[in-house]
Structures are given as C-alpha cells and as structure tokens.
C-alpha cells in the first residue's frame, strides 16, 4: 500500500467539480443543436473543398471547460496533396 495514500485528499471534491461542468454542458445541449458537431462538419467540408486529405488523418479534440470549451481540428495535409479546383457555380 502506498503510504502517501493515507494523506491523500478525498476524491469527492473532484467528483463534484467534474459533475458540475459536465451537467452544465448536458443541460444546455438538450435544447440546442450540437454546436461542436456542426463546426466539425463544416470545417472539414470547407477544407475538403480546397485540398484532398485522408479522413483518417484527421484528429478532432474537444475539451469542455467550465467557462470555455475548445475544439481542435488537426488535419494532416500531405505536401503533395492535389488541390481541388473550385468549379464556378
């Protein structure tokens, strides 16, 4: 047994904090469309209009915070990627 665990602070405050943040998001999400989901789709659609990329080389990270959330979209674009020429509409 780890002797330091005797002095460990209880984990309940962490549980409370995690729940408060999570539920604040879930309560909002019930009445709203999935903003981060929409952003993800539209950003990928935008990029794919200009360059070809492998959809499997896309990493999407999300962090729901107390006051701000972040969405990080990491797209690996090969230097040799063919440029998609936009057709005039």
């Amino acid at each position, binding site marked *: 047994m780890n002797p330091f665990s005797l002095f460990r602070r209880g984990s309940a405050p962490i549980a409370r904090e995690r729940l408060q943040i999570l539920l604040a998001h*879930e*309560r909002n999400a019930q009445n709203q469309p999935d903003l981060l989901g929409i952003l993800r789709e539209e950003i990928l659609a935008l990029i794919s209009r200009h360059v070809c990329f492998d959809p499997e080389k896309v990493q999407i990270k999300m962090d729901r915070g107390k006051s701000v959330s972040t969405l990080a979209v990491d797209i690996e674009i090969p230097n040799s990627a063919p440029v998609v020429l936009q057709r005039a509409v």
Partner: protein
Amino acid sequence: MDKKSAARVVVVTSGKGGVGKTTTTAALGAALAQGGDKVAVIDFDVGLRNLDLVLGAERRVVFDLINVIHGVAKLPQALIRDKRLETLYLLPASQTRDKDALTEDGVAKVIAELRTRFDWIICDSPAGIERGATLAMRHADAAIIVTNPEVSSVRDSDRIIGLLDSKTEKAERGECVDKQLLITRYHPWRAARGEMLSIDDVLEILSIPLLGIIPESEEVLRASNLGSPVTLNNASSAPARAYFDAARRLTGETVPMQVPSESRRILDKLFGRKAA
C-alpha cells in the same frame, strides 16, 4: 376501505440501474400500507421483473400488466394482495414479453382504474430512458429520483429530471411533476472523509428537494433475500427508519432529516471493546 382523498401516482425512477428503485418501491409501498393507506405497486420493468421477488410474491403471479393492457385479464384478477399487509397490492410486469408490449393507451387506462381504487399508485420504473421508463413516469403526480452518491448515478438522475420536466402528462399540460430526491447506499463515514459525494454536493448539483437518505446496510440485502420489504422485515433497522421517515414526508408531513451516522456507532463499538 374508503378512499380519503385523491389518489397519488408516484414514479420511482433513476436512469441508472442497480441504485435501489425496486427496493425503494417495496419499502415505501409497505411503509404507506402499514399506515393504513391502500397502495398498489406496479412493476414497469417488462421482461426483467423483480418487484414480485423483492415482495416475496414471485410464486403467486398469474396475470400481469401486459395481460391487463391486452384485455386477457381484468385488473382485479392481476392484482396480487400482499400476504402480510392487506392494503398492499402488486401489479407485476410480464417476464416473457418485451417493453414494446406496453401501449400508451393501455397504461393510461390501467392507471386511471387504479386511481379509483387506491390511495397510492407507485410505479417502479425500469432503468434507462426507453419506453418502459417513459411510460412509468408518464402519468406521475410525483417522482422519487433514486440516486447513489456517485458520479454516474448523479448524471443519469439529471437526465431523468429533464425527462420528467418534458415528457410527462403534467409537463405537457404546463404543470410540474413534484420531484424529490432519495439518496440510497449512503456511507456516512466515506462522505465525512471526502471519499464520497456528500448529501450537500448531490443536492447542490441536482437542486431538487430531499425526500430521504437511506444508509448502506446489510438489512436491505437481508430483506430482499427473504422477499420482504425492509420496512416490514426489520422495522427498527436504520434503512427501515429512513424509509418510514421518507414515507411520512411523501404524505406531506414535516419530518426532521436524520443524516445517518453509522461511523460513530462503529467507533463507539471499537472503543467500547478496547475499554472492556
């Protein structure tokens, strides 16, 4: 027995499984029946019924809720009277059908008929947020949200509170289902050491009134082993007393909230033994 006032339909719900809904339905049903009220407990967990087992009536089930809904049996034929409490009745769920056999109209008719015969109709909801759970809460006047002081249970309770505020008949009429929180499997010493969410933590997060705190106890397991509600099996045990208090609050009585403190008793025992 004459009915004193309007029947009250109460759903016992939680979202998460295994938190104590069936135990609570049996314990509160028996507590209210011991006070002389006429009580019907309904199992909505079609396909996975267990309220019959917890009440010790598993060998007496002939007809069930689905049979009544489909007109195979009349309601009085399907209701099983408790052997110990003459004002407590069980309407079991079907074990062989699945939850799609529950129809909205059928459930509405059964509840309406029960309202004319009983003081309390306690609906034991299945876990989850599917058809069985939504139909169990559909006609509720009041809801008991059973929650363990643990993150997944609290999160699911929050979701269920959202459903109670949107998917029930009362909510659709612009009214509000009376929601109360019942915290079960509470370990006072763990909460005191900051190892478990405290009562205040859970209340602050869910922000609904507290109906009661049921301490973790071997008596609950013993009662279900024996097929007897804990309020009947050992009425003086800590969980039974907590359920009796909750039942009184449910009837509108003001009862001071006892926060269980098993830890002190254990410490006393230890010191007592050392001193001897």
